[in-house]
């Protein structure tokens, strides 16, 4: 079966530091692929490479067999790849609901321009998504007044509103309180399964990875040091030392 996303032999370096050193990875339809690894090992760079934010020095990225290595983030987004960020990327002086509605409108096509952003249907859809991530009560707040954890959730909801085929999540549970972590992941995974969204997530929390990922890539110094089902990977002594021990 052809993978949704396939990266081959990616190389990129920043000021001589190799952030990706011959990385290849692929993700198949319906997978929840987790990437774990120590801080600074280049995990976020992989997401940047796969979404066109950073261009690789060499190597290629294919989406459904189409070469997207040189495409801009907006073009890749329109092909059905959405991203939630480690540091939430929001329209911070706009209301939560407006953040959502603009994302929904982006999907509808921006060029229905003389109609207002806020329509009944769009508002209902936005509210439903906010309910899903537990932000229903915050919908009229200005997004930069939200606590960090909630901003993180909003960032994920904004990405979901694009109705992607592939969702890239950068540490979705960091900044979310321990108490809310698993309820959030349950809701998120439920939504992903229901909408048949494939997900790749960078994660720090090993419990989250063990419970939700069906494949794990262990990252170290710009490359993959181990790969497999969480149960097997977490038995690997090298992995335990380099990653889990640190985390």
């Amino acid at each position: 079966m052809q993978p949704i996303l396939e990266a081959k032999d990616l190389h990129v370096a920043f000021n001589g530091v190799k952030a990706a050193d011959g990385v290849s990875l692929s993700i198949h339809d319906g997978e929840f692929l987790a990437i774990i690894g120590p801080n600074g090992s280049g995990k976020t760079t992989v997401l940047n490479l796969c979404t066109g934010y950073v261009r690789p020095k060499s190597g290629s990225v294919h989406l459904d067999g189409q070469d997207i290595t040189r495409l801009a983030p907006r073009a890749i987004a329109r092909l059905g790849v959405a991203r939630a960020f480690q540091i939430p990327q929001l329209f911070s002086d706009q209301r939560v609901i407006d953040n959502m509605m603009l994302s929904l409108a982006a999907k509808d096509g921006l060029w229905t321009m003389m109609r207002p952003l806020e329509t009944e249907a769009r508002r209902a859809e936005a509210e439903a998504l906010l309910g899903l991530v537990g932000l229903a009560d915050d919908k009229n707040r200005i997004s930069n007044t939200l606590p960090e954890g909630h901003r993180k959730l909003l960032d994920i909801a904004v990405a979901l509103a694009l109705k992607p085929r592939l969702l890239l999540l950068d540490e979705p549970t960091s900044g979310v309180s321990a108490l809310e972590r698993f309820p959030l992941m349950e809701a998120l995974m439920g939504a992903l399964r229901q909408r048949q969204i494939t997900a790749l997530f960078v994660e720090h929390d090993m419990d989250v990875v063990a419970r939700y990922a069906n494949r794990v890539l262990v990252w170290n110094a710009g490359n993959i040091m181990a790969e497999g089902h969480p149960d097997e990977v977490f038995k690997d002594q090298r992995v335990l030392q380099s990653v889990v021990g640190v985390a």
Partner: protein
Amino acid sequence: MSNTVIPLLLDSLASAALIFFAAVGLTLVFSVLRVLNVAHGSLYSIGAYVAASICLFIASRQLSPYLSFVALLFSAVFVAAILGPLIERTLIRWTYGKSEAVQILITFGLFLMLEDLQRMVFGVQSLYEDAPVRLLGTSQIGGVVYLNYQIFLIGMAVLVVIGLRMLIRHTRLGRLITAVVADREMAQSIGIDTNRIFILAFSLGVFLAALGGALAMPTSGVAPGLGADTMVLAFAVAAIGGLGQIEGAAVAALIVGLARVLAIYFVPSLDAVAPYAAMLVVLLIRPYGLFGAVTARRI
């Protein structure tokens, strides 16, 4: 050959020197304070007005004309000592960390106020006193007669470039400024009094602006509108060199000076367009100017 090249070269250099004086303070202030001061041109014209007033006073009392050279320098120091700290403390300080739009608007407000204040203090007639020019006399190069004052201006510009370089590279103040430019918060956290640095740097910028105006006065006089005209020229030069790049401003001044003189020699009607056309071409190719650097955003 040399009959056309030498005058052209000397004209360009003299023109570049004046243009450099208009821009260097603007770019210095931007590099340290990260504020684009739209009122910079007014400080230049105030320097010119003060210099003109003092020189006219000297002439009217028939004091030694050599005093007028002292007067040029003194007016710059005078304007900087009074307006530098005053403006920095009251207005500029408020804009730190604010958006560029706010900084531009606040200093535009200041520009409007200074324009009227100049009119109220110095009147609307143009002032002109060329004692320094007459004093230095003329000389002949390649059969063409030159004002020695032009050569004096070129020398002063070179002096300022070297002086600023020495100040920044080799003095304690320079190192403190460099630290603040590199990382404001870090500088603060290791105990550098950034407020003091900002006042000093801004006042130095005002000094350079006023000095530029004072030095230009004996050649072209001063009249209402000089501030506004100087401002755009300073913008153009600072932008071409890369905002915040002092050596960049010097190179940019040479380019603009040459462009202007070439225009005057060959297409006189386009001399006023030359600086802006040069700015457009450079910025469209290198948006951050010839010597400017780009910083990427982390996500």
